[in-house]
């Protein structure tokens, strides 16, 4: 308990978290703040694969929700369609973007309100059997959409 809290504190300092020698790096992760009566929310982030093999995110577990699923959002002729998916592939030496309107980690059955500015934790499991636990901030929709230091190359 104490150790994981320390880890959470450490990852607060670094924008990316790398644990247990996973070749996956995570940037700009956040959970969307929701009204107190809201039963679910979504987490967004950039997953970077530093290895030479494709790796998939295959499962997630949030500390604040009963169930955590991998979802995507498709826009078909102006109609938004949310669907559950088995995995999110992160190509070798590439990245996967989880962002509003597309891929997301869905937190279902929140056991507490998520207020902007708080930190919460999320465990991610990958197809290479590596696990990463990240601490991520709770952000409002608008501030989540405009992360500081978001550079396009």
């Amino acid at each position: 308990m104490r150790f994981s809290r320390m880890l959470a504190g450490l990852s607060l300092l670094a924008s990316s978290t790398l644990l247990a020698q996973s070749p996956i790096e995570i940037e700009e992760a956040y959970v969307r703040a929701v009204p107190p009566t809201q039963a679910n929310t979504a987490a967004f982030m950039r997953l970077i694969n530093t290895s030479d093999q494709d790796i998939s995110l295959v499962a997630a577990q949030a500390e604040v929700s009963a169930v955590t699923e991998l979802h995507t959002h498709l826009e078909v002729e102006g109609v938004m369609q949310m669907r559950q998916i088995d995995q999110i592939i992160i190509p070798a030496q590439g990245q996967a973007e989880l962002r509003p309107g597309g891929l997301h980690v869905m937190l279902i059955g929140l056991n507490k309100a998520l207020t902007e500015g708080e930190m919460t934790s999320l465990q991610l499991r990958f197809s290479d059997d590596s696990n990463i636990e990240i601490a991520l901030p709770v952000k409002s929709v608008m501030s989540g959409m405009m992360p500081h230091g978001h550079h396009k190359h």
Partner: protein
Amino acid sequence: MTPIRILLITCILALVATLVFIRQQTEPNSSAPLSTQGGDFTLNSAEGPVSLRDFRGQAVVLYIGYTYCPDVCPLSLAILGQALKQLPEEDAARVQGLFISVDPERDSLEHLRDYARFFHPSLIGLTADKATLDQVVQQYGAFYRRVEMRDSAMEYAVDHSSRLYLINPKGELVGSLSHSSSPDLLLRRIQELLND
């Protein structure tokens, strides 16, 4: 009046009646593609029934979605909330934001009230029975459908179109914006509605 004059008037009246009749026959067809004409509706809020006509004299921005929607609904409402916050106070009093949920099964009136207020204190959350919602959705050229999610704890999703509908102070639908619009663009469009 001479019989000839009576005949003439009768002919003219018959001609006018025929033209009016032809016009009425063709009019529904010529306006048929305009399925997105908007118009009045009455839905439920936690504070009682709300109709579009209650806001005559105000600009109205309307969004149709559901609260389980993870991103485009909160995004659209956040854009709306942001635009409302940027309006000068005297203008803000002349604008009403409405959020209509097409998921009445999960979105209670109390939840919708709290959810809407989270994005801006003046936003009103609305829903109704399926038949009423279907009518409003059709009026505004929107779309929704329930889709079962077999392996998901969500049980079902609600596929839906995602537009911010712009309604002028006369209650007329004049356009719409997507959820990828900036709050600044929405702000400008709201000001156009008010200055019209």
